[in-house]
């Protein structure tokens, strides 16, 4: 239990929000905020303002070939820790359920998570043929779905169709203001060629993606 009360915390909340509070004071404030919804909301509001301050700094053109140098470093990092992002996908996909983030992901089934390699699938609008989000498929049956654009608000069925076999619904998801997510288990294995789609209440496919061969 924090020794600070709400008045104390509100005095220190701006420094916490600005990231300049250190040591014991920081620990005490965080302890209080974790247990006090009103102070927590206050800190969040201040943090939103504080985080916006760096966004005011004018843009500056980086030195020539900066992007290429960054991409080279990312490539080195990817080679060093190829397995890292398998775990990060699983974590991100799990987060998608809670946080309604903006992609379509298919995550590992429980028993294959450690060995599966995710495959990215671009989801595109079935009529307008514009991107709607992403899918990441690994290992089979665990599925997390979320899209961020191009799909009207409403209820949709999450449909999967194996390369050979009939499509079937594995869940429903709600799109609100262009955003929505869903996670669950596929009743059929999703291999290369499998199709993932969102189907509206009239049975029309709204967006879809096809699982490519694992690279």
């Amino acid at each position, binding site marked *: 239990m924090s020794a600070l009360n709400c008045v104390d915390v509100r*005095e220190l909340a*701006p*420094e916490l*929000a*600005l*990231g*300049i*509070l*250190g040591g014991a004071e920081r620990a005490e404030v965080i302890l209080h905020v974790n247990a006090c919804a009103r102070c927590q909301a206050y800190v969040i*509001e*201040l*943090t*939103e*303002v*504080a*985080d*916006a*301050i*760096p*966004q*005011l*700094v*004018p*843009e*500056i*053109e*980086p*030195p020539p070939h*900066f*992007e290429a*140098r*960054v*991409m080279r*470093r*990312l*490539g080195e*990092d*990817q080679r060093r820790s190829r397995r*890292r*992002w398998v775990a*990060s*996908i699983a*974590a*991100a996909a799990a*987060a998608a359920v809670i*946080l*309604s*983030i*903006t*992609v379509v*992901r298919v995550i590992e089934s429980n028993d294959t998570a450690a060995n599966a390699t*995710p495959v*990215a699938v671009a989801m595109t609008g079935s009529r307008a043929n*514009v*991107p709607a*989000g*992403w899918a*990441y498929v690994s290992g089979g049956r665990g599925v997390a779905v979320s899209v*961020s*654009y191009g799909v009207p608000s409403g209820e949709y069925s999450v449909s999967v169709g194996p390369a050979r076999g009939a499509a079937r619904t594995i869940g429903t998801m709600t799109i609100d203001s262009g955003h929505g997510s869903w996670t669950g288990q596929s009743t059929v294995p999703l291999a290369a060629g499998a199709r993932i789609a969102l189907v509206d209440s009239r049975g029309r496919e709204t967006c879809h993606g096809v699982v490519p061969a694992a690279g």
Partner: protein
Amino acid sequence: MWTVSDDALVAGLAAGDRDAASAFVGRFQRRVYGLARTIVADDRAAEDIAQEAFVRAWKHAGAYDPRRGSVVGWLLTITRNLAIDAVRVRRPVAFDPAALLGFDAPSVDRDPAELALLSDDTTRLRAALARLPEEQCRAVVLAGLLGYTAREVGEMEDIPLGTAKTRIRTALIRLRAALVNEERTE
């Protein structure tokens, strides 16, 4: 023209998608480099920090939480923290918040699509900062942009610690109030 959302690019990063990574770097490199350069005031150090910021974003994209702020806010927070760590010893001597925040910068030519993406909040925050008493503006920018603690603000401004804390606190609360009030009047 259709534009991939920032959130979708981060999702691509989380999946190790190099096309998404390339688009992400291209989209934000001027902002990331601009912030790093502003804080460390050194071209080479700024490039190192900007590169590292993108590597960190790449590594931690899976943990990005859209409920806790925008992609650019997340990325610039990473950049700011790296830059502040880099200048723990080498502090700038001169400090002009108006110059740092581009209050006097000429407007940049942008295409309409890009202009539409610029945040209204950013515009409002800039106006609210400009309306603060100068000493409060300096205090909150020293803290919020350059990472100075209240004690360091006090030393830099030659004021007691309590006064520095009050300036920082009052400034941030006023900024928040200004943004909330403007939202209500819209």
